[in-house]
């Protein structure tokens, strides 16, 4: 087992935890947190799996740098929405949807 594979495996588990968290958790901040775990998991798989032979690969590393910036952009956007909802309703949870 190489360093790359160890962290790819950890990434796969992190991703699954993150998805389950986004689906199951009610508190919006915690769902945002879960989304970040999901992203980190995917990043670890991307770099770890590519480097499973133990040789550094700059291509997925550059992709992850791009991905980290996209993730922080999405996180800030989500937090802006969550804070706005909190300011309007006083809660950090989503109200029931009205879809009729």
């Amino acid at each position, binding site marked *: 087992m190489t360093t790359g594979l160890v962290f790819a495996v950890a990434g*796969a588990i992190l991703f699954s935890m993150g998805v389950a968290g986004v689906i199951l958790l009610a508190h919006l901040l915690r769902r945002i947190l879960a989304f970040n775990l999901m992203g980190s998991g995917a990043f670890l798989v991307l770099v770890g799996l590519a480097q499973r032979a133990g040789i550094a690969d700059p291509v997925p590393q550059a992709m992850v740098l*791009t991905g980290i910036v*996209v993730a922080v952009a999405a996180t*800030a956007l989500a937090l*802006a929405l969550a804070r706005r909802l909190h300011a309007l309703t006083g809660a950090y949870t989503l109200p029931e949807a009205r879809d009729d």
Partner: protein
Amino acid sequence: MKAVVLAAAAFAALLVAVMLDLPAAAVDLPAAVAANLSHSGVAHPVTAVLLNFRGYDTLLEIGVLLLALLVVLAVSPHAEEPAGAARVSVEPVLQAIARIAVPLMLLAAVYLLWAGAHRPGGAFQAGAVLAAAAVLLHLAGLLPGWHAPKLLLRAGLAGGFLVFLAAAAALLARGALLAYPPAAAGALILVIESALTVSLGLTLAGLFLFLSRDEA
């Protein structure tokens, strides 16, 4: 609840199993990167991928960041109001730290930007350090939260993206988007990275400072 957890665990196990059982990749991109590094204008492979080989990803990603800032402004009604009597508290200890740390952080940002051409570092890391400096100043009570961005600030936020876009468009004359002439690639990338550092710093700081207003 239990079903989702079990499904996630099963999925993770499946994922791990298939990853452990993967033959070697057919395409060797690290070799291609190494072979073309001398034409990329920089000596650090990650920077070469980020700004040259896959520079188009980076261009769109800066767009995503600017877009996120725009949405933050769009959903925060207070962001458009002029700065009122901003309540800035005095935090003596933090202020003392900030007065020492911020100049060092500016120095570190310049170093990271310059270093990116041949070793780890570059516009992203430099911009993030700039943003961290701004956030620290804010927490110390030395910089109020931001309100409606004036033209100058808007230009600062969008400038890096515009420079990058303009470069991409101008290089079309060489036959493709972002087709740097090898001889000038290093200089062009440094110009783009410098502009990006300022804008990334402002945008990342803005994500915090536009959100972090005292919601009355």
